[in-house]
């Protein structure tokens, strides 16, 4: 009986390994949780640095961005959906920037999973992306985010005391700038 159970256990394990995709090294961060600790380089571009409200050089963490909510998009220059959604995400940036009530409260950044600086620049130039994009050539950040598929959107609420939590995550399914802004406003308590 014991032998049978062992064999069954192995069979189940084998079956699950065959049928289900390989597990990521970590689970993607969930709503209500904090972000994994990742360091991004302070942009050299002065406009981008000002946009994020950062000073100095070196590295920063996402909750240090001067905002009440940060939208993080994990994208790839090689991902067709990210390409297709790019104009819509740019539109979201414009909606925010053109609204004096929220322009200092919501910021957007993109992280190019597996993309070199050159590749991120190609994406930025192709779609005239107006917000800061960061390369993640060796997938370090992508791994910290649980190896999510792309595009992956996260809304991070930053509290006045400097604490933060993820208030929304979404794989693909970008609904367009206006509905997404509405979602961001509600999720982050700005509305």
């Amino acid at each position: 009986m014991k032998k049978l159970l062992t064999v069954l256990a192995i069979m189940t394990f084998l079956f699950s390994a065959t049928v289900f995709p390989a597990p990521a090294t970590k689970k993607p961060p969930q709503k209500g949780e904090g972000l994994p600790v990742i360091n991004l380089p302070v942009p050299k571009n002065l406009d981008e640095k000002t946009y994020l409200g950062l000073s100095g050089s070196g590295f920063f963490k996402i909750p240090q961005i001067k905002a009440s909510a940060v939208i993080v998009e994990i994208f790839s220059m090689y991902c067709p959906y990210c390409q297709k959604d790019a104009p819509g995400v740019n539109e979201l940036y414009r909606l925010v920037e053109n609204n004096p009530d929220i322009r200092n409260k919501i910021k957007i950044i993109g992280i190019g999973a597996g993309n070199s600086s050159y590749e991120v620049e190609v994406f930025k130039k192709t779609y005239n992306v107006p917000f800061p994009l960061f390369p993640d050539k060796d997938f370090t950040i992508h791994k910290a985010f649980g190896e999510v598929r792309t595009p992956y959107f996260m809304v991070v609420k930053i509290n006045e005391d400097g604490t933060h939590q993820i208030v929304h995550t979404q794989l693909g399914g970008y609904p367009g700038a206006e509905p997404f802004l509405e979602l961001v406003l509600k999720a982050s308590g700005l509305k």
Partner: protein
Amino acid sequence: MEKKRFPHIISIIGALFVFVSVPMAFGLSDVYKGNIYQTGTLKPMDSKLKVKVGDPAPHFTLPAISGEKISLGQYRGKKNVVLSFVPAAWTPVCSDQWPGYNIAKDIFNQYDTVLLGITVDNIPTLFAWTNQMGQLWFPVLSDFWPHGAVAKRYGVLRSDGVSERVLFVIDKKGFIRYIDVHDINKRPPLEDLMSALEKLK
């Protein structure tokens, strides 16, 4: 008896753990959803090049998804050519190599270069697969029959019948100027190819 079997089970579980833990960081786009076949980590290179930089590029004519036949010779004296062989449709790294080239058309144009994508898959498979990538601006050619003949002539056909992930840059005179037989498990960085094209100027 139980004691004897125990290490055996551990080794099976251990082996499986290695198998399922291999990072699959490519083919990430949600566009493919569950349709990418996970190949696992493969032997980085499994063929022997039959051409080298400076050689005239072996001639070929292959059918494209569009229905036309494309010959390497038709670009002679007119355009530089990049041949991008990728191993197979519906596999992780390949599925997110060409979509990147698809938004780099301006850069290829800037270097007066055409891109030809080639795999050993048949036309219907290539049609379905590349449809997921959006409208590709470059021809996609099928080296299916005789199987992998062009890949074989260049020396990039692997022992299991798929090609290497390889980039050839061929100048307007028809000579090979750059070869990158890349680790099949990784995507070649775009900047490496572009700096090779820069040198043709």
